[in-house]
């Protein structure tokens, strides 16, 4: 019988496998949370206490727990992984690790570990606990099996408060090896938030974080909220068929989907790979895959229709950007992780764009890497050729991986093509590429916020003595000031533009209201103008010629022609650009101009205009505002006058007057119709309230005219009231506006 020798395992081996092979302490903690996931936990509590008297990390879950034999035969057996043989948890979760070293992450986090687990053992629950001092493994000439593991005689476990079962595991790690900082906690929270994909419902796995380093991150970890992308693409490749199906929808076309089915042999031509890595041109070896891509252009349109500010949404995109690979719904690092130096841009998106930086108006448009959020879903069973690398992070770069990469790039090419297409459609429709006013409002808000942040930064810098400024800090200060000024100017322009936009809308609405009221008159005048001319011509062509009729008709034709022309001139001149500028104008001239233009409309219904009491005064005004007030009041007065069929009069007055020490002027418009009852004097100014009714009591007014006046008067810091005109007996509207 030959002599046999055996390996002896140095106790330090465990330190190499654990402490030294795990990248950082956040990754180590994440490994332990993944173990909870594999153990079918519904809830995981993570506590990190580094300040004051506490110095520990606690991870508790309500998973299946471990029996004594589980601890002895599995947990304490290095390299053992039940996940190799039992790939699915009882809940059907695909288990995430295979190498059996995840538990050694605890060594990365702290010197001492206490683990207590409650598991079902037949008809009873079994509670077991052990203590490990990892530093005992850090000894020379110490055999691994010789390091004692303490068994806790009366173990007690505190399972999560929100536990859904009575089993579970609690790990307490003390004598922490690292000084957790705010950045570490934030990074951990972010990593936890995207532990499960943002694309699917993961509410069955809740994580609660509690720490005393940065308590603002305490609470339930939630996946990033869904925000409407500009384009959403879903591609499905089932390895049993060579067909690749895809659906694309975009925010411009709502739920209208563009769907298609394509063979890889055709789609493979769409792959644009800056690194020219090899891939199969016909039969993909990667296995079935689902690819979801969301495009978030970092423009103000991103915030449209959401409750988020533009800066918040940019932050969200920043946090989630990247095309990640999810294996059985758990992300595989470092693919798509922006913080990773290697593997982050595994698709070479930045390189693609930099080689061809064409905009969306060009067919060769390439997506910008920081606009794309994506997920490539694979599974251990569906994708057996995609293998974990031995380095614990990442996948083996074999043919299957390159094929997976190629099909993902083809999906990106489809998305790019769609974005180019919708841009072309919008261009053809003559879509306005200038920002809409809602976009402008979003920019305005974001820029003000940005400007405020700049001011705060400047304040901090100003507090420091001048000699402490480095050249870079000074340069940054100057840049910040320039940025602040630019932001303020843009905000100012945006605001002015918005006001002008409202001004034009009010002007257009006023024309609309006036058209509705005077429409009957105008329509009648148009018919009369044309028909009188035709009749005159027809009478000229028959014998005997009846000259009286011909003259009568021609005179009417001229009269109504003038009336139609006057109305056209009136409507067209209401929203002229120069009326939207604030300037010094003679108010009397504005009023007389409006009255002259409306005379031809009032005359046929025998309305007399009295405007003897107009004083000449100048004020700094937007002419369109004054005209909108006048036209709406005159339109109301016109309708009111028709309530009576005798002595129809509208009286317009202009005079100066002060209010609260402010110099201003009054415009009053009174009519001979019925007065407005006092109970309606507030109600009538509100939108859609109207007193105009037909003979059947049906409301015929728009209820908008007085609301427009109210809005303008309030914007100009003026006042308004409704009185009864003693002379005419009807309503009298009295508007006061400041001179400047």
């Amino acid at each position, binding site marked *: 019988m030959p002599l046999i020798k055996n390996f002896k395992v140095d106790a330090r081996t465990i330190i190499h496998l654990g402490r030294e092979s795990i990248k950082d302490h956040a990754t180590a903690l994440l490994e332990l949370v993944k173990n909870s996931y594999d153990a079918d936990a519904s809830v995981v509590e993570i506590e990190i206490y580094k300040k004051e008297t506490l110095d520990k990390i606690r991870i508790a879950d309500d998973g299946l727990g471990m029996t004594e034999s589980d601890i002895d035969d599995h947990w304490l057996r290095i390299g053992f992984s039940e996940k190799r043989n039992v790939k699915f948890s009882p809940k059907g979760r695909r288990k995430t690790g295979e190498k059996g070293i995840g538990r050694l992450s605890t060594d990365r986090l702290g010197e001492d570990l206490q683990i207590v687990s409650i598991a079902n053992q037949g008809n009873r629950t079994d509670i077991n606990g052990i203590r490990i001092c990892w530093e005992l493994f850090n000894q020379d000439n110490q055999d691994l099996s010789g390091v004692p593991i303490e068994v806790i005689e009366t173990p007690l476990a505190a399972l999560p408060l929100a536990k859904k079962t009575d089993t579970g595991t609690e790990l307490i790690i003390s004598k922490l090896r690292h000084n957790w900082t705010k950045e570490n906690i934030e990074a951990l929270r972010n990593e936890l938030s995207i532990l499960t994909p943002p694309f699917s419902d993961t509410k069955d796995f809740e994580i609660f974080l509690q720490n005393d380093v940065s308590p603002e991150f305490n609470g339930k970890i939630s996946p990033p909220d869904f925000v409407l992308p500009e384009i959403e693409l879903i591609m499905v490749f089932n390895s049993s068929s060579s067909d690749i199906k895809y659906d694309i929808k975009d925010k411009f076309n709502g739920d209208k989907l563009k769907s298609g089915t394509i063979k890889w042999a055709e789609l493979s031509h769409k792959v644009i790979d800056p690194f020219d890595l090899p891939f199969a041109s016909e039969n993909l070896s990667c296995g079935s895959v689902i690819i979801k891509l969301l495009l978030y252009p970092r423009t103000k349109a991103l915030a449209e229709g959401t409750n988020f500010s533009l800066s918040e949404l940019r932050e969200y995109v920043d946090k989630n950007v990247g095309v990640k690979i999810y294996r059985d719904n758990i992300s595989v690092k470092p693919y798509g992780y922006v913080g990773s130096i290697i593997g982050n841009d595994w698709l070479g998106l930045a390189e693609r764009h930099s080689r061809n930086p064409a905009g969306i108006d060009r067919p060769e448009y390439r997506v910008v890497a920081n606009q794309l959020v994506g997920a490539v879903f694979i599974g251990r069973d569906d994708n057996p050729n995609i293998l974990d690398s031995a380095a614990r992070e990442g996948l083996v770069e074999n043919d299957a991986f390159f094929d997976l990469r190629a099909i993902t790039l083809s999906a990106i090419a489809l998305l790019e093509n769609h974005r180019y297409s919708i841009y072309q459609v919008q261009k053809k429709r003559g879509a306005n590429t200038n920002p809409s006013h809602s976009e402008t409002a979003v920019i305005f808000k974001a820029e003000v916020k940005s400007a405020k942040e700049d001011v705060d930064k400047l304040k901090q810098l100003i507090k420091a003595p001048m000699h402490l400024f480095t050249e870079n800090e000074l340069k940054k200060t100057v840049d910040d000031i320039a940025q602040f000024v630019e932001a303020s100017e843009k905000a100012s322009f945006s605001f002015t533009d918005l006001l002008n936009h409202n001004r034009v809308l009010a002007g257009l609405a006023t024309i609309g209201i006036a058209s509705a009221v005077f429409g*009957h*008159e105008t*329509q*009648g005048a148009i*018919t*009369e103008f*044309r*028909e*009188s001319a*035709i*009749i005159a011509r*027809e*009478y000229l062509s*028959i014998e005997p010629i009846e000259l009286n*009729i011909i003259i*009568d*008709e021609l005179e*009417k034709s001229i*009269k*109504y022609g003038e009336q139609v022309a006057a109305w056209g001139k009136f409507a067209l001149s209401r929203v002229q650009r120069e009326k939207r500028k604030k300037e010094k104008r003679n108010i009397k001239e504005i009023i007389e101009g409006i009255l002259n233009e409306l005379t031809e409309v009032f005359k*046929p*219904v*025998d*309305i007399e205009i009295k405007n003897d009491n107009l004083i000449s005064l100048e004020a700094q005004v937007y002419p369109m505002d004054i005209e909108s007030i006048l036209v709406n009041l005159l339109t109301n007065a016109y309708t009111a006058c*028709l309530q*009576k*069929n*005798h*002595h*129809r009069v509208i009286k317009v007055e202009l005079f100066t007057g002060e209010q609260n020490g402010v110099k201003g002027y009054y415009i009053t418009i009174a009519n001979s119709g019925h007065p407005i009852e006092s109970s309606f004097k507030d109600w009538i100014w509100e939108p859609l309230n109207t007193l105009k009714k*037909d*003979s*059947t009591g*049906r409301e015929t007014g728009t209820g908008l005219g007085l609301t427009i006046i109210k809005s303008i008067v309030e914007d100009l810091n003026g006042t308004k009231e409704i009185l009864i005109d003693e002379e005419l007996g009807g309503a009298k509207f009295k508007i006061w506006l400041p001179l400047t």
Partner: protein
Amino acid sequence: MPNIAIVDDRRDFRRTLKHKIELSLRKLNQSIWSVIDIDPFPIIGDYVSWIQDNDIAILILDEKLQEVATGSKVDYSGSLLIEKIRETLKEFPVFAITSYPNEPDLQSKFPLFDEILERDAFFNKSDEYISRFLRAGQRFLITHYEQLKRLSELSEKIALGTSSNEEKNELKLLQILMALPYSHLPTREQWLKEYEDKLNELDAISLKIEQFLAAKKS
């Protein structure tokens, strides 16, 4: 001589319409017809007698009859006027010619008009429309004439006491058709009985009033 009457408070408008209709009548050689145009009457109830007294066979209305400050107290529209006219003249041809044929007030009375026309549409095909108006007017005149003649015959027979029961029923139907007030009691006895019943009812009411007042006093 039958007349076509136009009712509109806008003199200019109605005169243009009058001239247009007269032109069409000349083209259609319908010199028997005349066109008259009037301001709306202050009292809505005056139209029926005016129609009957002035041989009006066709009436044309505008919807808005109070646009001009005439000083009169017109407080009704074309759609209210047609309702009033139809209370009495069920078959009389009435047309609306207006700039706003789709006004809800007017459309709600659509079944009462022979036709509601947009002013533009009428002017574009005035000859065709006038032909249609005239046919309606002629039908009315003929029917009205024959009904009046028969009414006269039957009335005479009843007065002479020579009418049969069938003729009495025919008179009743004719009165309904022509919207005339009629007596539905064929015999004097029946009339007297009903009269007596009514007096008795009034007597009973009078008694109740007396009792009520007496109770109030005490």
